[in-house]
């Protein structure tokens, strides 16, 4: 059965294609339209997904990732709960809903008919069910506890499930307006970042600060119970009635005004981020302990935007009874498209199909997006190459890896474009920027000259699976870069006397380990383990680098610049290559080396 899952109309629109329970394709719309977090109907992602349909076959079922009327119910209930407050929000949302969103079923049907000439059966999943399905069904577990945490779906913001073979049973939930995701977004907005977009920046900022406000947050903003359930104090929030996340009481609580977008970050902001991180971890760890206890499970699956908090994820394995964890790489709403397709597969067919569980997960390395053949790449290079640049053509990937290892060893930074594009917010080696992790100025150089982003932002390492313990105090695999762990003591280096006692942002550029470009100020790193079976091309590149330098680790960051989605096509890659300080670009088996890099 050919099933298409769709998520759209809020943020991170996406489409996925699942055939007889096997994931075939999935992609976010933003990659095609080049609009970050594009919320529109995923026309291009759908177009891409159906290219994988077997010849002569049609789509049998389309599943939308949530129930729009339930969401509208929440919206109406919110107006009824707060009126006469909330006019501005009403003026903003009501026309949108009454003109469009209430008619989503008809709109989607019309669009599909126009696109394909027919409209298959259309069904609707529920937001948190889509999240739960997106992390449990592709996981390698027959049975697992499932935790979903996000801003809000229809009503639910937190759900706890038990997954067993084909079944997902909801055990507990917390409903809007009490939401850990919305608390995180509110503080993100207070710190001058964009809510629903920049939460990962707040997480990266946290290690620069001291968690001196965590008690204030717990006293005033959120009450957390021993079982991890929580409730927000709505006196400080405005998301129910206004267009902002917080109200005038929040700046008073922290005794500082809201940071404006272009104002410099100060230690105070890092302290707020650190405090929020501590509170977030407390909630997540308590919830995980509760569900592990309630279900007796030692396997955990996670999804929802909050599951991208890889610092908290790393602590789950250290501080709870959970032994194995699997997190959906597209944990946010885009992954809802994949979950929706699985809901269609397991819930809309009679009899219920049997779930096939392999020794590994069935996410296929999350390499589910489009790929481009040599002819297309050659054409793009011919059309856009700077004539002074040098192009090398390799018939063997192995030989290209040796040359790239040589360039990286010289300290150059390159773009890596090969194979299928990743599904989810992390670049995992197919649309990546790579560099030598030993480079002392690596973080500063890539942030300033290549990504044009804030200097405090850290970079993540990719490491050979067999070398994981050599570099990090982590034992669990992390193929999707979703776990943070500490750098191993054996590779930490003593601080220079002049660096001792540095605090906050003064710690930037301080060398703490043999791989300083990927060691954050608190000695942590967000790790991607590379296994030969999951990602043979990247594994071979790391092996070539290790053969040359003795180190099986590199910097891996997404191939994009600040504010843009990750590159999708060879054209995007070339454009990014020529507008940034990248030194070389791998396009499949071709290598372009920038001649005029000194400029």
């Amino acid at each position, binding site marked *: 059965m050919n099933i298409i899952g769709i998520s759209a109309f809020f943020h991170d629109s996406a489409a996925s294609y699942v055939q007889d329970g096997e994931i075939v394709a999935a992609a976010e719309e933003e990659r095609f339209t080049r609009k970050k977090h594009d919320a529109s109907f995923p026309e291009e992602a759908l177009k891409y997904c159906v290219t994988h349909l077997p010849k002569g076959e049609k789509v049998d079922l389309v599943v939308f990732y949530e129930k729009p009327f339930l969401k509208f119910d929440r919206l109406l209930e919110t107006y*009824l709960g707060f009126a006469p407050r909330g006019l501005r929000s009403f003026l903003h949302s009501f026309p949108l809903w009454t*003109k469009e969103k209430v008619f989503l079923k008809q709109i989607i049907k019309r669009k599909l008919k126009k696109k394909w000439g027919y409209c298959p059966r*259309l069904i609707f999943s529920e937001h948190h069910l889509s999240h739960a399905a997106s992390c449990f069904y592709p996981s390698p577990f027959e049975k697992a506890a499932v935790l979903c945490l996000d801003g809000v779906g229809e009503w639910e913001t937190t759900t706890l499930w038990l997954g067993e073979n084909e079944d997902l049973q909801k055990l507990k*939930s917390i409903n809007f307006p009490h939401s850990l995701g919305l608390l995180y977004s509110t503080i993100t907005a207070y710190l001058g970042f964009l809510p629903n977009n920049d939460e990962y920046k707040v997480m990266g900022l946290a290690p620069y600060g001291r968690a001196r406000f965590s008690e204030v947050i717990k006293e005033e903003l959120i009450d957390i119970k021993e079982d991890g359930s929580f409730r927000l104090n709505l006196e400080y929030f405005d998301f*129910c009635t206004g267009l902002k996340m917080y109200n005038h009481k929040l700046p008073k609580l922290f005794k500082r005004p809201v940071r404006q977008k272009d104002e410099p970050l100060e230690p105070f902001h890092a302290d707020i981020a650190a405090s929020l991180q501590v509170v977030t971890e407390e909630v997540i760890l308590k919830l995980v302990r509760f569900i592990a206890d309630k279900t007796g499970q030692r396997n955990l699956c996670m999804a929802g935007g909050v599951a991208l908090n890889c610092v908290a994820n790393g602590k789950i394995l250290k501080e709870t009874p959970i032994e194995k964890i699997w997190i959906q790489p597209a944990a946010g709403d885009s992954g809802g498209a994949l979950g929706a397709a699985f809901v269609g597969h397991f819930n809309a067919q009679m009899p219920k199909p049997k779930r096939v569980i392999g020794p590994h997960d069935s996410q296929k390395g999350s390499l589910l997006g489009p790929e481009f053949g040599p002819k297309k790449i050659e054409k793009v290079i011919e059309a856009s190459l700077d004539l002074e640049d040098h192009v090398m053509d390799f018939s063997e990937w192995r030989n290209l890896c040796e040359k790239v290892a040589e360039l990286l060893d010289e300290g150059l930074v390159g773009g890596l474009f090969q194979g299928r594009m990743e599904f989810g917010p992390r670049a995992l080696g197919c649309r990546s920027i790579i560099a030598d992790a030993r480079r002392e100025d690596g973080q500063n150089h890539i942030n300033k000259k290549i990504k044009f982003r804030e200097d405090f932002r850290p970079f993540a390492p990719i490491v050979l699976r067999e070398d994981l313990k050599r570099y990090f105090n982590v034992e669990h695999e992390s193929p999707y870069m979703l776990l943070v762990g500490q750098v191993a003591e054996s590779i930490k280096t003593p601080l220079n006397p002049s660096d001792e006692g540095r605090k906050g942002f003064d710690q930037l550029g301080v060398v703490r380990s043999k791989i300083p470009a990927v060691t954050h100020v608190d000695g942590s790193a967000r790790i991607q383990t590379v296994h030969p079976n999951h990602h043979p091309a990247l594994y071979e590149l790391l092996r070539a680098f290790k053969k040359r330098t003795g180190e099986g680790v590199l910097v891996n960051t997404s191939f994009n610049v600040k504010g843009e989605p990750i590159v999708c096509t060879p054209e995007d890659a070339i454009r990014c290559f020529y507008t940034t300080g990248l030194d070389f670009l791998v396009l499949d088996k071709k290598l372009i080396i920038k001649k005029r890099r000194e400029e």
Partner: protein
Amino acid sequence: MKFINFMGRFLSPAFEVFKTVNNTILLSVLFYVVISPLALGRRLLFGSRLHKKIDKSAHSYFEDPQVMSENLENPF
């Protein structure tokens, strides 16, 4: 939910009217003259599920899970 269900099934022509409405004044009147008194009355009589406050003495804030709709074809 029944209310929404009813609206979806039988009052879609009313929504068609709103389709053409993009008038701030009209919406403001609707909000203050119709919705607000209704909302205030409803809150006075039945309370609101959105106004649950922090209760330090409670042991848990978990709610009974929302029953999942059996009809997948419905957007509600």
